[in-house]
């Protein structure tokens, strides 16, 4: 049964990208375990505003696990202690009365802090812009079933396409590597006939952008896969390595 709990929050507060940040401690009483984690933060912000203080800045949008906007490193885990869910899907029932919850922003050189818990994730957008698309001439809509695709490939591509670009992979990685994200974005297209045409160019361009933006070198620790809210598999990273190495060898 859901109860009301009293919790202590240690939240990272930082005024701006270049300011020095520090943890602030807040107490919240009578939080319903039925509320979501972000609702709990809404309650905190309301309390701060009523006290005449600055509310905590954090990213969120859809609040249903599809947009990839929410972040937060909660008690040592990106998207919190639950598995396969985003922060917005995390519930307070995962916490107990009297708990202290530490909330930090993503920490990675590729994702500088903008303010408090909000980080700049445009680096991932830039990687997508570098090649995460299929070029088509506009015209009539092609019939979806005109090109037969083996079920196995369709499934693998769909699994890779589940990536919402949230950045938890780079945030979890001790090497600050974006390989899980890039590999998912390369795989979802490389597996399909429509995407295969540009597969070599895509792999090269996206990896080059990833390196240029200062993300680290993957050493296969698998922290990304374990923390990814969408269970993207590191077998995608093997595929990316394969695509990239072949593309370079063929040049």
């Amino acid at each position, binding site marked *: 049964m859901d109860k009301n709990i009293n919790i202590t929050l240690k939240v990272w507060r930082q005024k701006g990208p270049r300011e020095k940040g520090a943890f602030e401690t807040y107490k919240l009483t009578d939080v319903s375990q039925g509320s979501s984690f972000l609702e709990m933060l809404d309650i905190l912000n309301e309390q701060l505003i009523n006290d005449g203080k600055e509310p905590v800045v954090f990213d969120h949008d859809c609040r249903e696990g599809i947009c990839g906007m929410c972040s937060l490193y909660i008690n040592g885990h990106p998207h919190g202690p639950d598995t396969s869910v985003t922060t917005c899907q995390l519930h307070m029932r995962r916490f107990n009365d009297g708990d202290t919850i530490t909330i930090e922003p993503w920490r990675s050189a590729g994702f500088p802090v903008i303010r408090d818990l909000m980080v700049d994730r445009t680096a991932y957008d830039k990687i997508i812009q570098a090649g995460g698309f299929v070029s088509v001439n506009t015209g009539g809509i092609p019939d979806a079933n005109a090109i037969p695709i083996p079920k196995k490939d369709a499934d693998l591509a769909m699994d890779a396409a589940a990536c919402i670009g949230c950045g938890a992979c780079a945030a979890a*990685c001790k090497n600050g590597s974006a390989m899980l994200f890039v590999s998912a974005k390369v795989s979802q297209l490389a597996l399909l006939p429509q995407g295969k045409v540009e597969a070599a160019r895509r792999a090269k361009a996206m990896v080059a952008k990833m390196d240029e933006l200062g993300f680290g070198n993957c050493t296969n620790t*698998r922290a990304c896969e374990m923390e990814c809210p969408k269970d993207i598999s590191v077998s995608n990273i093997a595929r990316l390595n394969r695509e990239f190495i072949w593309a*370079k060898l063929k040049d």
Partner: protein
Amino acid sequence: MWLLNSSIGKKLIMSISGVFLILFLTFHLCMNIAAVFSESAYNMICAFLGSNWYAVAGTLVLAAGFVIHIVYAIILTLENRKARGNDRYAVNVRPKNVEWSSQNMLVLGFIVLGFLVLHFAQFWYKMMFAELMGHHEVELGGQMVGTTEGATFIKYYFSQIWIVIAYLAWYVALWFHLTHGFWSALQTIGWNNTVWFNRWKVVSDVFATVICLGFAFVTIAFYLKSLCGGACC
């Protein structure tokens, strides 16, 4: 050049050099096992791999392999620390299924390296290097020993308990390095998928265990032989 500039290229260098070192270790183990069963056979191998041009060339290639592996280990680790940024998390939890060794490869590598220095001082310096310097005998524990009498070297060193323990500790570090290194190298080359993932991990564990137990077997066998003064076998 993509091999030197791109992250995946640098990782490929790391994995190929690692696989090369693994192949060498396997060969080295086979040689050592021979020593347990026949010291004269082992000495024959030592003579064959003495100061001949092909053995020296092989040693140079091997040294290059080590240097490349270590230089890239340091480059990659430094780059990765930079990519992580200066601000560290206050709370760190190792997620389940993340191997401890995978996060400590550099530390494990340096332990391996430390013992390699000891190992080279004990064996290579007194065997191949001495021969290259034109000596055919070196002093070992107060006696003159031929530089190709590898078995005598092994018996001398592995009769000392601290050396035995140090070597055993080394094998443990190596075991950790290999359980992650083996499958990681294949993953880096791209030779992996959802089905092979678990298979490679099992192969890694079995392989690392066989290699390290094999080396440990040789070390312990010679220590036990030294205890009975060679009378028991």
